[in-house]
Structures are given as structure tokens and as C-alpha cells.
């Protein structure tokens, strides 16, 4: 096993196939590119023959991140891939216009073969993705994984969480049914109430009224801008990991494994994830609502669940800028947590910081529950 393949003459059929390819294109370049996305850990020299590269990939041990708790990071990438695939299928039929959005969505779910499955898988996937990304952020915080040299990992984890929430929010509007329309209106009211950021974002989406322009801009953000940014931060995550390695919480080293086992695990997890989404979509499909009516708000319309806490904050009898400033402040300080912790020096030990984080999380939960009931009276 340990001998290099180049020293033995090509005999098997597989060896001949590899040589055939290597004589025609430099596939080593592709493997070199793939290393940026974490599947391949070995540094690949693009000048070496393909057989050497393959042998190197096969024999170099790698840390398995297909196991708890590292799997949260893996799911962040895998779920995104599933969302991308199902999203592309949906985009084949979807029309981002006020006239066509509802009808085309309905025809996807109702008339197109297996369209309902793709639609529901995409929606359930978005739910899971938001949950996974938030749980991952909590986990990184709890285990102190924002400390040097993992500051960039934390930064990109926060960025991914923000991007996922924005992807979910922009995607929510697209079906243009009464729930999605009014939920987005409620959400945008929160965004527009924020100081500084609110006016900037309202200028970006074209004013403070819901319209076809908002739909169009949300569509472009949803299918191009945000996914590309997301990919960039996925790259940043893997690039950091390749330098600093997987975390060793409690001094337990991650298991070393082979490429073959690792790749097989990835396929199995992807398959289970897909099967899970199909099961959820079949047994618990989302209800399909009537078309959006700009002149009638359905009873009990709430912003999306992750916006319930800010929604509750804005209901407090305070001038709008106080909760607004608190929200904007939190949003901008969260990615720079490592720097703040270091600046605080030894006044903040691990335990105190965890308790503070727990308190903030508890407050967020309480506010979310309040936000869900604030409108109902």
C-alpha cells in the first residue's frame, strides 16, 4: 500500500484508464481545486501525475468531520447543496412577477410532476438549515471555539447564520401567497424600523411599500447574491479548518480515517438527509394558502419566527431607536466577539461568558414567545 504507484508498471484496467485520462487532461488541477472545499485534505501538486495524486488522496489520513459535534458544520454545507439543487429545479418553473408568482408556485406544487416534493423539500430544508446554523453558532460559543486561532471560523459562522436568515426571509416572500406576503410585510416593518440600517436597506429594495419591485429584488438576492456570499463563507470555513484543524474539545482528538471511509460517510449522510426531508415533506407538508391580497391582512399574521424577538422589542413602549440601536449593535458586535473577549482580558472567564450567553439566549426565547402572542390580545 505504501509504495508509490508510479514505480510499478500499469497493469490493471483502472490503472490504464487513469493513464489514458492523464495523457489527455490534467485532472490533478481539479483535485487541487477541490481541496478548497474540504473533501480532500492533502495539498495536491498539480504538476504530479494523476495516479500519484489519487494514491496520495487514498493513503493520506484525514480527520473525520462526519461525526458529532463536527457534523453541524458538514450539515451547513450539505443542506445548502440540497437547497441549491431543489432551488434550481424550482427556478425552472417559477416566475418572479406579481402576476405570475402565485400561479407558477401553485402549478409547481399542483401540476408539475413531483413538483410538490421539490417545493416541500426546499421549504423543509430551509427550516433545517436555519436551525442547524443557529445550533452550530451556539455550539461554537459554548465550547469557546471563537478563541485564537479560530476567530475567522467564528466570524464566518456568524456570517453564515445571517446569510441563512436572509435567504430564508427573501425566499419566504417568493410564493406571494397571503401568508408569505403579509409575513414579509411584518418582517420588513421591523427591518425598516432599525436606525441607520433600515433606511439603507429600504433604499436598496426600493422604498417602504411591498410591491413587485421588492419581489424582483428579493428573487435576485435569493438566487444569486446571497448564495454566492454563502459559498464564499463556506470556503472561508474550510480554509480555516485546513489550517487549524478540527476542534479538540475536552482534549479528545478527532478520529483519523481514510478517504474511502470519509467519502462513504458523506454519501450516507447526504442520502439520510434527503430521505429525512422527503419523509417530512410527505408526512407534514406545508399548507398551501390563498393568493396575496394587498388590501386584506389575514388574522394573526406574524413575522417569520426568527424575527419574533425584535418584533416583541418594537412593541415595548419605548422610542423606536432604543430597541433598534440594541438590535443593530448586537448584530454588528457578534462577529467580533473574539476581539471583545480579548479586550475584556481576564475579567471574563469561560464560565461567566457562558452564563452571559445563556442569559442572552434565554432573553431571546422569552421575547420570541412574547412576540408570538403580542398581536393576538
Amino acid at each position, binding site marked *: *500500500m505504501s509504495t508509490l504507484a508510479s514505480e510499478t508498471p500499469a497493469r490493471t484496467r483502472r490503472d490504464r484508464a487513469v493513464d489514458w485520462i492523464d495523457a489527455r487532461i490534467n485532472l490533478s488541477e481539479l483535485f487541487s481545486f477541490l481541496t478548497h472545499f474540504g473533501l480532500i485534505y492533502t495539498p495536491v501538486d498539480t504538476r504530479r501525475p494523476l495516479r500519484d495524486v489519487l494514491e496520495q488522496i487514498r*493513503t*493520506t*489520513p484525514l480527520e473525520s468531520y462526519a461525526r458529532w459535534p463536527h457534523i453541524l458544520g458538514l450539515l451547513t454545507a450539505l443542506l445548502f447543496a440540497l437547497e441549491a439543487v431543489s432551488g434550481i429545479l424550482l427556478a425552472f418553473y417559477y416566475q418572479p412577477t406579481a402576476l405570475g408568482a402565485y400561479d407558477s408556485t*401553485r402549478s409547481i*406544487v*399542483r*401540476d408539475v410532476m413531483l413538483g410538490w416534493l421539490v417545493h416541500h423539500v426546499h421549504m423543509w430544508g430551509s427550516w433545517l438549515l436555519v436551525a442547524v446554523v443557529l445550533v452550530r453558532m451556539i455550539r461554537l460559543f459554548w465550547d469557546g471555539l471563537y478563541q485564537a486561532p479560530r476567530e475567522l471560523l467564528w466570524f464566518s459562522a456568524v456570517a453564515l447564520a445571517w446569510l441563512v436568515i436572509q435567504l430564508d426571509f427573501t425566499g419566504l416572500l417568493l410564493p406571494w401567497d397571503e401568508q408569505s406576503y403579509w409575513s414579509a410585510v411584518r418582517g420588513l416593518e421591523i427591518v425598516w424600523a432599525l436606525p441607520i440600517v433600515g433606511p439603507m436597506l429600504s433604499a436598496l429594495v426600493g422604498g417602504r411599500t411591498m410591491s413587485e419591485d421588492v419581489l424582483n429584488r428579493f428573487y435576485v438576492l435569493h438566487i444569486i447574491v446571497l448564495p454566492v456570499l454563502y459559498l464564499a463563507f463556506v470556503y472561508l470555513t474550510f480554509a480555516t479548518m485546513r489550517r487549524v484543524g478540527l476542534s479538540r474539545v475536552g482534549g479528545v482528538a478527532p*478520529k*483519523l*480515517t*481514510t478517504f*474511502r*471511509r470519509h467519502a*462513504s*460517510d458523506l*454519501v*450516507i449522510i447526504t*442520502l*439520510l438527509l434527503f*430521505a429525512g426531508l*422527503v*419523509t417530512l415533506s*410527505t*408526512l407534514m*407538508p406545508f*399548507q*398551501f*394558502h*390563498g393568493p396575496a391580497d394587498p388590501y386584506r391582512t389575514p388574522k394573526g399574521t406574524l413575522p417569520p419566527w426568527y424575527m419574533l424577538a425584535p418584533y416583541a422589542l418594537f412593541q415595548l413602549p419605548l422610542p423606536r431607536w432604543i430597541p433598534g440601536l440594541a438590535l443593530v449593535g448586537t448584530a454588528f458586535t457578534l462577529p467580533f466577539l473574539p476581539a471583545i473577549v480579548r479586550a475584556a482580558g481576564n475579567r471574563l472567564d469561560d464560565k461567566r461568558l457562558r452564563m452571559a450567553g445563556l442569559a442572552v439566549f434565554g432573553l431571546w426565547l422569552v421575547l420570541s414567545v412574547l412576540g408570538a402572542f403580542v398581536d393576538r390580545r
Partner: protein
Amino acid sequence: MSAHAKEKGMGLWRRATALTLLLLPLAFLLASGAFAAARKTGDGKVTKASGRCGSCHPDERVAFEKSRHAGEDMHCTSCHGGNDQSLDEAGAHQGNGWRGKITRAQDPAMCASCHADEKVMQPYDLPVDQYSQYQTSGHGKLLAKGDGKVAVCSDCHGAHDVLSAHDPASRTYVTNIPRTCGTCHGDTTLVRERKMKDTYHEYLGSVHAKSLFDKGNLKAPTCVSCHGVHGAAPSDIGNVNKVCGRCHTAERRYFKSGPHAAAMAAEQMAECSSCHGDHGIAPSETARLASSCVKCHDKGSKDEVLGATLLADYQSAAEAIEKAEKVVARADAVPIQTEDYKARIEEAHTYLFEALTAAHAVSPEAMSGYTTRARSVGEEIQEELGSKLQNITVEKLFLLVFWFYVIVTIGIIRRFRDAGPRAVK
């Protein structure tokens, strides 16, 4: 022409143009000033419509100038006589058939002097029979008897400020008619004095008034739709069903085919209004199919049972449609194609509506033709869409097959995985 001369000529030309341009705004100002002066109608100035009368009668002049008459070569003198060019009162108030203030008794005949004249009315395409109709009306007959309080032309149309009935500001515009009649027929003092019914306030609570005022349905009946316009008269017993039947044609047809028509005529009972009321007609209510019988028939009689049968028949059909609508709503939430079913529910609602009309014949046979159709459409939809929804539940069993393949595939991948070494040293 030399170059110099050419230049000089052009200079002149340029100066003339500049002067014209300078004078243009001035000319415009002058012209607009003259125009405004021409339009200005200060006190004492002679105007086309009212002459000099407005100097002493400014309120009447203002009202008159806004009226339909003002633009049609009508003047104060057309009705009042006298001389509208005179500079003093004595000169103005004499000659030309001077009448001064027109009394209520004179009013109809005075209006008729033009409005009953075919030659005068022909250009406006207006009818000329209002005066003769008025004379046959309740108002006209009482006026002829010397009753000075009954309505004359000016009570409904206004005196100086007469407007066309098509003008929404007019007292005789369709939405203003109830209030115009209500000036007397809704005046509580007058109503008590003259022992009339307060029909105006009764009407305001009716389904007709709701349609007119709340829904803005300009075709909804007002006072004049039933009582006539100038020949206003109350409808007699025996005629009520004809008056109502002008719009409610099918109800009248069914009613006449039923047993009530002859029986009520014999008893001298008003047909429609005996059950529905007259001015304060309430919205139709299906429960009345059973509850209104005991107004005349004995409790527990076979007639009351018949009413209960009609109601039960109607309700079972309505219930079938309601259930079908619920199934459609469930199918929409999936969603399943429901456009066809929605169209059929519309159709069923039409049958149901027809059934209520047919109920006026008070015969289960006449009604069941429609209720049966409505019920069967409702039940068909429940069955067809229900089985489609059931199919979706059955389709969920395919998940078992799907998971079987997933598990088999995972098994294969695991074997492939475990075929290699567990770890690299």
C-alpha cells in the same frame, strides 16, 4: 443686397421679434383682465339669467344661477313676471304679468305652463304628462280639495334651485329620493298630525335601502319605484303582488301558482306584504319558511308541518353544499385542482337560490326540483374530492418503498466503505 444691408435688415427683424415677445405677456394680462371683468357679476350688474333682480334678492339669484333653468334662456321674469331691467322697485314689480310670490296652490299650474307644453319641452326630450299625472296623484287630489300642506312641484324639485334628476346634487337624484319624500313622510310631527305611517324611517331599515345606500346599487327600489313619480299613489290590495312582481317576477309566478293567491284574495289580504312587510322589508331569511306560517295558521296544523318540511328540505341541501365547500378548502390547501368543483358549487348555489323562489308556491314538489339538484351536486363533490384526498393519504405508503431503497443503498455503501482499511497509519 450688400452684406451690411443684410445685417441691418436682420437687426430690425430681431428687434421686432423681441418687442413682440415682450408685449406678449402684457397682451395676455390685458386679455385675461378683460375676460375676468366680463365674467364678474357684482351686485346691481345686469346678468343674463337674473337681470337686475339680484340687487335686492341676492340669495334667490345665487340659487337660481346654479339651477338647471339658468342656462336655458329662463329668467326671474319667466315665472314671476315684472321687469328685470328696471332700476327701481316699483318699475321692477309691475307689468309683464307680474305675479310676485307664487303660492303653493299656483305652483303646479305655473310649472305646467312650460312643462306640459310639448313645443317647449320637445328640444329637451322631456315628458309633458307630469302635470296630468300629478292631478291624479294623492298629492294632486288633496291640493284640489284645498289642502295647502300637500306636496307641490317645488317641495320635491326645489323652487329656484331646480336641478336635473341626473345631477347627484339634485333632490330627485335616485339616492336622494327617500330623503326628499321623507321631508314630509318622515317628519314625526307631521306624521302624528295627519295620522300617516312614518314610512321613511321604516324604509331606511329595509333591505332595499341597504342595497341602495350600503351597496351603492342605483337600481335598488326607492319610494318612486313602487308608488310612481308624479302620479304618486299607494298600492291597493290585489295590486301589491303586481308591483313587487315587476322586479321579483319568478316569485310572483310561483306565488300565483300556489294555494295562497286565491285564498288571500278571498280574505282581502295584501299578498307579498302580509309576510314580508311593506316599507321595512327585511332581508330574506330561510328560517321564515317555517316561522311565518303560524302568523295565520294554527300551531301544530298540517300547514305548519308543511312549512317545517320545506325548511328541512332546504337546509339539508344547504348543508350538503357547505360540506362540499369545506372539502374544496381542504383540497385547496394541498393543493389539488378545484376550479371545476368551484364552478359546480356556484351552480349549486344557483339551484339553492331558485329553491327559495320556488318556495313561494308553498309546495314541496315545486321546491324539491331545485333542492334535489343542489344536494346531489354537493354530495358528488364531497365524494369525488374526498376520494382524491384519500388517495394522497394512501400515496404516503410509498414512503415505505422509498425507505427500503434508501436503506438498501446505504447498506451497499457501507459494504464498500468497510471493504477498505479502517484507518491509515
